């Protein structure tokens, strides 16, 4: 079963009038800036990891249009159930860069006390739910949270991100089924970046499209060009509005490509050909959007270089600000397991407090 790909930004640089979200020049430049920023963040983080200053990183290079296009469609009250690759969405949803960087270092500035490896951030005040490593576990949770809002008559939407690999899990099917049955205000956003580590999407599903699966659960599926920031923005906006208005869930499949490694622990040359990567490089979402902006007269070489330099500088500053914080205190290890600390953890805390006890 195949499904048509929604594309707004055409090859000739024009925009499909039927899908044009009609953003003004200022906003278009804002989106571009955010995409460039996300790429700069990735580059810096990968360098930090190579230099041994952080332990691990998961990059989003190649997926900027999906991240920024969908993240920009959110309203402040909307909830995000992210996966570990969605730092772009988090930043657009108000998550402070310094918090994100501090989480990479897992030091005393990390609001989550260095409890998880990098890329596992959260922020209750911005309705960004804690990232889990087990893939797709967030999907049924997003349904429950959406159910709660619907029950109270609130008009928030709940977007949950996952990958093509995640679409194979039991939790994906469970969540889609529950959301369909309860008609909850959910948007399921699948970043189909073609690989789950080394395994291609053809090993995740025998259907030609992940979006097509929505039909089996009784709601809308949209297959969008994930390297087209305008199309991603437009379909996500529509899906969120449908959800907020009581129209039920949508499954979005953003067809994109992860340009880099799965994570800093991965070597993609073992499973991808140089030709394949090169073919996708030609569809680079940042370059593609840049040429669109150029055709509109919104961007030139000098301005593009300024934007890139500003992005690098902002990331540099945040790293400098966060890196030197002291480590998390040892006894924080036993905090937050329960609302109140039980005796066995108090005993373990005493041990952690002993000089030389650790």
């Amino acid at each position: 079963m195949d499904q048509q790909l929604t594309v707004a930004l055409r090859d000739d640089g024009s925009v499909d009038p039927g899908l044009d979200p009609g953003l003004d020049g200022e906003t278009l430049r804002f989106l571009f800036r955010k995409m460039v920023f996300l790429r700069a963040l990735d580059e810096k983080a990968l360098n930090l990891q190579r230099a041994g200053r952080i332990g691990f990183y998961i990059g989003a290079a190649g997926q900027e249009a999906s991240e920024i296009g969908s993240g920009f469609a959110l309203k402040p009250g909307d909830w995000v159930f992210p996966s570990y690759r969605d730092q772009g969405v988090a930043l657009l949803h108000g998550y402070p860069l310094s918090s994100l960087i501090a989480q990479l270092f897992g030091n005393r500035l990390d609001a989550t006390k260095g409890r998880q490896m990098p890329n596992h951030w959260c922020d209750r005040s911005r309705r960004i739910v804690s990232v889990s490593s087990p893939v797709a576990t967030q999907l049924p949770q997003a349904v429950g949270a959406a159910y709660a809002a619907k029950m109270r008559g609130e008009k928030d939407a709940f977007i949950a991100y996952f990958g093509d690999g995640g679409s194979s899990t039991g939790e994906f099917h469970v969540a889609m089924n529950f959301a369909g049955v309860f008609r909850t205000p959910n948007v399921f956003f699948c970043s189909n970046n073609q690989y789950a580590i080394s395994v291609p999407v053809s090993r995740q599903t025998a259907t030609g499209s992940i979006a097509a699966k929505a039909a089996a659960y009784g709601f809308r599926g949209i297959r969008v060009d994930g390297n087209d920031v305008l199309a991603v923005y437009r379909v996500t906006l529509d899906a969120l509005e449908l959800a907020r208005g009581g129209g039920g869930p949508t499954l979005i499949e953003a067809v994109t490509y992860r340009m880099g490694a799965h994570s800093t622990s991965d070597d993609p040359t073992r499973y991808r050909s140089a030709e394949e990567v090169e073919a996708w490089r030609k569809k680079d979402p940042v370059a593609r959007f840049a040429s669109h902006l150029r055709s509109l007269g919104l961007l030139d070489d000098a301005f593009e270089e300024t934007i890139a330099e500003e992005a690098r500088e902002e990331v540099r500053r945040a790293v400098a600000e966060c890196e030197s914080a002291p480590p998390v205190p040892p006894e924080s290890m036993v905090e937050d397991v329960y609302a109140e600390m039980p005796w066995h953890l108090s005993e373990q805390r005493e041990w952690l407090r002993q000089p030389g006890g650790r």
Partner: protein
Amino acid sequence: MATMTFVQAIHDALAVEMERDPRVVLLGEDIGKNGGVFRATEGLWARFGPARVIDTPLAEAGIVGMAIGMALNGLRPVAEIQFADFIYPAFDQIVSELAKFRYRSAGQFPAPVVVRTPSGGGIKGGHYHSQSPEAYFIHTAGLKVAMPSTPADGKGMLAAAMRDPDPVIFLEPKALYRTVKGDVPEGDFVVPLGKARSVRSGEDVSLITYGATVHVAEEAAAIAAEEGIGVDVIDLRTLWPLDIDAVVQSVELTGRAVVLHEAPRTCGFGAELAALIQEKAFLHLKAPVQRVTGFDTPFPYALEKLYIPDARRVLDAVRAAMNF
């Protein structure tokens, strides 16, 4: 006070708490119109409506996953897993997600979910309707695990679990649902989690147990008393966090301990109890801690009476502790 069966007491807790707190929602399989296969939710669907008493699709990972999301967004969900044996499809949501949300978010996202489930054997259910999975959950940091043994505790502890800020795995000994009756306070009634109950006092042997085997312990203690052995029976009620003081005080008094449960022996909760007693009351011990447990086999259908510890096996252990 009203006289209730165990399952009526569970029902009463759900009804009272739903009345008290509009954030309470129930979700599970067959809990709505049908009132649950054990009838624990009978009538609640008609009374509180299908939005608060939710018949879900048949998927345990969905039930618990959805409950987590509800809790993250301000509800107080009580998820019913029809039998504890079917909790394993939800295991990932419980141990990877529910248990860790508070910790991994450093307190930003507490997940106060109660997972209720009928546990244990004694109903001719074979091994897919009889398991005692408590050790998995006790082993998982972030969960509270409770198992009442009387109707009053069933009501009061479930009410406490529903008001608790942390996730609670609430195991209901299904063998007791209709076989045990008792006085239960009406209306708002809470038995705090984390406090053991002294079932019977004695000075010779501490007999530490929970759930359905509390009744086996009482039977054994009565027989032992005729032989002149005073058995101090403790019903732990909340398995984790444990009321360690109650255990240690009793063992300091008696100098002997028998731990008793229906779940399999190896790495069972009894092993942890024995280790804790050894750590915290070693110099008071006059005999090694005895374990009376189920067998290290899948739960058997035809031989369930043999599998579940009975008073005779408990007495053997009590005597072994006395005669060491």
